[in-house]
């Protein structure tokens, strides 16, 4: 790393996830890194949270009352995670399904990955790799074709939406009883977060929600927080988490071997195919927003 610190105002002003609430010991100081800044944070049993730039006097593991910490950064609990910002954030993007009471809401895991956030988002959007990387789970040969789907950049909601995605999956979720054509909708409502909706094997009218919320450590390292919000009354939490971790564990070496690690935004930098329609929209959207952190900006 030659540069130090994030100077990208778009990224600085966003909410970023820094910890799963379920994995945070209540009333204790914990620490993490966001955009190359070392942060301390704490959450109490009542759901009060505080985040601050690390400083002497608040050491990891110390007891602390979040409400009594002064000189703090913005803090918010949403979708099972603690979010903060190094700038002035607007409202966080909505996931209305998260409020539906019959859903299982879990942090499948938070995993450190040696990749830029945009590369990881782009991989999450890609269906073409399913049969090869997630063999016999999210895809299988010879069902390798990515059929035509629609992508729009919603100006009003400021997010990317990919719809009418359909893929044959041997085992789409823990509740699957066999292979099926599965419908997908992808949202990218935040440069480093994506929300996926896919057919629920237990209720044909509803969709499971799986999100990746990426915490940028620096331009080439992330903590990937994987949120599940699914319909499943059969399986224990650990079985649902295991399914998602298995899939993420398959993606991890692919992500870590991407070169260059930062996502090139120049349309001529990498040759896309039809399956990459959502990736093309994502790169264009990042360019339009003027994102420079974690990417190689297009020249001119």
């Amino acid at each position, binding site marked *: 790393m030659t540069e130090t610190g994030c100077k990208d105002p778009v990224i600085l002003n966003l909410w970023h996830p820094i910890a799963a609430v379920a994995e945070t010991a209540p009333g204790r100081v914990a620490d993490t890194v966001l955009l190359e800044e070392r942060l301390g944070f704490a959450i109490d049993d009542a759901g009060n949270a505080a985040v601050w730039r690390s400083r002497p006097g608040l050491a990891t593991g110390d007891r602390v009352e979040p409400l009594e910490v002064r000189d703090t950064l913005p803090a918010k609990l949403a979708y099972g995670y603690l979010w903060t910002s190094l700038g002035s954030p607007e409202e966080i993007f909505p996931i209305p399904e998260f409020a539906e009471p019959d859903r299982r809401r879990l942090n499948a*895991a938070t*995993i*450190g990955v040696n990749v830029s956030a945009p590369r990881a988002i782009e991989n999450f959007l890609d269906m073409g790799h399913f049969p090869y990387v997630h063999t016999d789970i999210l895809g299988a040969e010879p069902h390798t074709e990515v059929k035509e789907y629609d992508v729009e950049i919603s100006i009003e909601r400021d997010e990317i939406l990919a719809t009418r995605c359909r893929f044959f999956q041997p085992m789409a979720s823990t509740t699957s009883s066999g292979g099926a054509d599965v419908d997908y909708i992808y949202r990218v409502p935040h440069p480093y977060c994506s929300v996926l909706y896919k057919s629920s094997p237990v209720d044909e009218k509803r969709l499971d929600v799986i999100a990746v919320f990426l915490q940028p450590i620096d331009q080439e390292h992330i903590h990937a927080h994987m949120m599940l919000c699914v319909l499943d009354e059969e399986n*224990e*939490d650990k079985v649902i*988490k*295991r399914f998602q971790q298995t899939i993420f564990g*398959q993606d*991890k*070496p692919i992500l870590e071997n991407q070169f260059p690690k930062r996502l090139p935004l120049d349309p001529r930098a990498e040759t896309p195919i039809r399956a990459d329609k959502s990736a093309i929209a994502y790169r264009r959207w990042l360019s339009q927003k003027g994102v420079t952190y974690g990417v190689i900006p297009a020249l001119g």
Partner: protein
Amino acid sequence: MITLYDYELSGNCYKLRLLMSILGIEYKTAPVDFYPGREHKSEWFLKLNPLGQIPVIDDDGLVLRDAQAILIYLAAKYDPSGTWYPRGNPALLGKISQWLSFADGITATASAARLHDGLFYALDIDAARAGAHRLFRILDEHLWFGEREDRDWICSAPSPTIADIACFPYVMLSEEGGIPRQDYPAIRRWCDRVKRIKGFTVMSGVFPAGPA
């Protein structure tokens, strides 16, 4: 029937799944939420293994912990060919034990580095990586000299032994701990040979061999 107390992303659990797949042993999986749930430190699990480590197997009431110990048990009991752990060959058994110990050293270094990078374990990452490189250098030389005398496997036997299974997973997953293998060509060729063993199976992070 064997029950394997298992975590998908664990290389030590994977080595048992791998040997059982190769030997065609049927087993049930009991998932352990190693991360983020730390279920291996929970009360019920500590009754099974007071060391709080995975994997553990239960074979009709025989409870065994320690991946290397379980490899010995499975091969001794379930390998009719007797080649994976050749009980009648003391010299070879000594060598196999030596490399099972070496595999524990790989766990303490390469696997530790992977836990640091991926799951945020607090440890001396530079020492872990340096330790792994030291072991990989030794293994690479051993395999390289083996190739000069037509030895394909870690031990001097015509077919692989549990020493190969014990060492393979955390060598294969080393890049997740920031330990590249480009300087170890003999290790890379050996990994490819392991992937071509009949009955080979993958785990998350390990891909099958490419077309020959």
